[in-house]
């Protein structure tokens, strides 16, 4: 059953700026209109860097809450809002889309897609947001659809099937617009899918190309699988990619191979799982790949947002890609060629003793029952990092001192069912202590730092060295936002939302929001006022300077 809820026309008094068409040129030049947040990462570069400077070190203490939007459903809220000319577009689980007045939080409309109850996702009914092109919004659904909506009415324009939910394919990521195409990947890495990214015609929903993240017979990389393992090998694509218009390359991180925990059951490197793939967005052809974790047995999805920047590297202007990986290593790659430039651990790592000159890990598997660091949730994960060209620093959220004990089992593939091959339990000081592996945390946060803790970290990509860190008692699944006034906005699982000095890590301001900050703050400007919005728990809170 699919229908629009009649939440329209709340007051109809406040006129909103007429929305011009969001062309692909506008998205390419998004940095030149910082009042808007036109694509998932703010710009195609994945930097989450805003040139807005109204909120600065001198006045950040005057931030106050301007409005909140309460989630209409329950459960973790991982959506990333867009803001276009005063209107915010965001999703809530499982597949609602809302258009909101970005000054007041009042709704224009709400579109609700109810996914088929047979849809299967590993980790909750997440949706991470919409994309916009022209005056059309695009959303992937848990049951594998891609839906185009009229941005002014919330009514569907077209609806196409990306993949079969009965085989446990799903779409949780926000789509990526490139030129006139809508790019989207699929989840299902815990269910024996064969991952892919596909491009759809933005006008009609017709599929234009599909790149399988696991090569088929006769394709390069196929030799990295044995027998029929490639058919159920996972490598999902469930977080946002980045795009370099100059090189005309789009970059996506890929997830774990399947079965997750039993690498012995799928010998070989298992390309292109746990990799970054560089694709021609016009054809879907692979230009290069770099694999972070060959034959992964730890669920080290490389589903982080690729961060693109141009910098001097050993005295030469270089187009680089920065990547803090779930596997605990921070990488710098040449994004024209995929060449490995630098890599080093940013947390305690014992699954590998280091990286060889090509960036390939020297794997050191731990014995049965022995802890592996970082643990199952990684040294970092899908929540986006940020990069400031002003400070030259890379900002990301880290889990320290967190390990898992892995259990490996043979598992038989059954279509649409779990295909994980064992399990992982967090290292804990006593049996039964609350850990991430238990996933559900009650209203009282009885986690203690004895099972790990979180950090907001600033790292210099040129040296690989940590410049500062802000230690948190609990772990953090917060994304990062940095502005040209050198303020880093970031949160954590404890429910605090912080403004920090991006150069020193000094805490400038904080607000307690009562629920974990997931995904990432964004910033925008309406009527000359800068706002910062962040989702924490079941609330989207928007802050601005005191009037």
């Amino acid at each position, binding site marked *: 059953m699919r229908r629009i809820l009649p939440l329209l026309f709340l007051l109809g008094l406040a006129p909103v700026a007429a929305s011009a068409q969001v062309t692909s040129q506008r998205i390419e030049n998004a940095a030149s209109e910082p009042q808007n947040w036109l694509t998932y990462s703010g710009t195609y570069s994945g930097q989450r860097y805003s040139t807005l400077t109204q909120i600065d070190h001198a006045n950040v203490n005057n931030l106050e809450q301007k409005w909140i939007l309460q989630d209409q459903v329950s*459960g973790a809220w991982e959506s990333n809002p867009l803001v276009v000319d005063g209107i915010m577009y965001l999703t809530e689980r*499982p597949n609602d889309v809302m258009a909101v007045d970005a000054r007041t939080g009042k709704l224009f409309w709400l579109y609700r897609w109810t996914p088929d*109850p047979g849809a*299967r996702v590993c980790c909750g*009914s997440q949706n991470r947001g919409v994309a916009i092109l022209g005056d059309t919004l695009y959303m992937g659904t848990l049951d594998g659809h891609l839906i185009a909506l009229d941005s002014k009415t919330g009514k569907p324009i077209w609806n196409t099937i990306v993949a079969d939910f009965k085989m446990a394919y799903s779409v949780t990521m926000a789509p990526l617009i490139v030129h006139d195409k809508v790019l989207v990947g699929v989840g299902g890495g815990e269910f024996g899918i064969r991952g892919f990214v596909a491009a759809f015609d933005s006008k009609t929903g017709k599929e234009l190309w599909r790149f399988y993240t696991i090569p088929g017979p006769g394709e390069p990389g196929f030799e990295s699988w044995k027998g029929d393992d490639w058919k159920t090998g996972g490598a999902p694509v469930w977080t946002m990619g980045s795009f370099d218009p100059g090189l005309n390359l789009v970059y996506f991180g890929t997830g774990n191979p399947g079965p997750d925990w039993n690498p012995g059951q799928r010998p070989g490197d298992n390309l292109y799982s746990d990799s970054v793939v560089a694709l021609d967005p016009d054809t879907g052809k692979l230009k290069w790949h770099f694999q972070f974790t060959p034959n992964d047995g730890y669920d080290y999805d490389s589903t982080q947002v690729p961060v693109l920047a141009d910098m001097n590297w050993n005295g030469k202007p270089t187009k680089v890609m920065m990547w803090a990986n779930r596997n605990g290593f921070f990488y710098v790659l040449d994004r024209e060629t995929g060449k490995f430039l630098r890599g080093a651990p940013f947390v305690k790592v014992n699954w590998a003793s280091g990286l060889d000159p090509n960036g390939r890990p020297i794997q050191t598997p731990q014995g049965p029952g022995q802890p592996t660091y970082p643990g199952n949730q990684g040294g970092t994960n899908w929540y986006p990092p940020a990069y400031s060209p002003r400070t030259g620093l890379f900002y990301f959220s880290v889990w320290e001192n967190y390990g898992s004990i892995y259990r490996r089992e043979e598992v038989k593939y059954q279509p649409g069912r*779990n295909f994980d091959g064992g399990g992982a339990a967090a290292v804990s000081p006593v*049996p039964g202590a609350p850990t991430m592996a238990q996933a559900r945390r009650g209203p009282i946060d009885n986690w203690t730092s004895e099972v790990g803790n979180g950090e907001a970290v600033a790292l210099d990509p040129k040296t690989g060295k940590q410049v500062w860190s802000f230690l948190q008692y609990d772990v953090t699944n917060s994304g990062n936002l940095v502005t040209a006034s050198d303020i880093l906005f970031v949160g954590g699982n404890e429910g605090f939302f912080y403004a920090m000095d991006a150069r020193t890590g000094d805490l400038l301001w904080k607000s307690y929001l009562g629920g974990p900050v997931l995904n990432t703050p964004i910033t925008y400007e309406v009527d000359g006022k800068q706002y910062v919005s962040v989702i924490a728990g079941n609330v989207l809170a928007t802050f601005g300077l005191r009037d």
Partner: protein
Amino acid sequence: MRRSLDLSGSLALRCFSAALVFFAITAPVFAQEHEYSADQIQSGYRLYTGQCQICHGNNGDNIAGVNLARQQFKTVRSDDDIRRMITTGNPAGMPPFALKPEELDNLVAFVRSGLDQGGVPFQLGDADRGKAVYDKSGCAQCHRIAGHGARTAPDLTDIGFIRRPGQMMTSLTKPNSATQPINRPIAIVTKDGRTIKGRRYDEDTFSVRLIDSREQMLSIQKSNISRYDIGRQSDMPSYQGKLADGEISDLLAYLVSLKG
């Protein structure tokens, strides 16, 4: 139309939606005395992951109204009921499983252990006798049940719901190995010279909440703390050797029966 759903259990929810007419049973379920070995629990764990997990989930809580880890069932009470349910299935959608008697025993042990993957062995005696052991052993000098007893140590009113039997068994015999990190004894010296001892409720980057030795609830900013010690030695004595084995089994059965 469902307003919200957690699809992680959707397959199971769909299979079993007809079973919602039953009520969860939270009353004590241990009428009989039982012993569950580590081998049984661990063998049951392997069976569970292969046969049961697809519907019941990793934590045993994927079926509405059933939480295997917390001994919440719709109709089941005794161990024999569990065996019967597995063998015959039910009309609500649970299929029958043809298992050997030994396999059934192992699954029962794993369920009764609270899905304890570590497989800590335990023996359950008689809960009524266990209450008498609780009363005579001075437990209420620190613990509290249903409004009676001290608050120095954790309130046990729902301990059978929130802890596995194996964890409680270890708490009784080797308390230092079982104290939950949040419950470690803490000692704080504030910048204005006060010394506060107590038990933590909650801690974050900036503050700690606790109940002190005078049973006052306090929230202290870390910026006001000059010294903060977290004790590794539990204040709880070991009852190994102090109580007879049968008394420990009885006491454990009593604690397991406390569902809040």
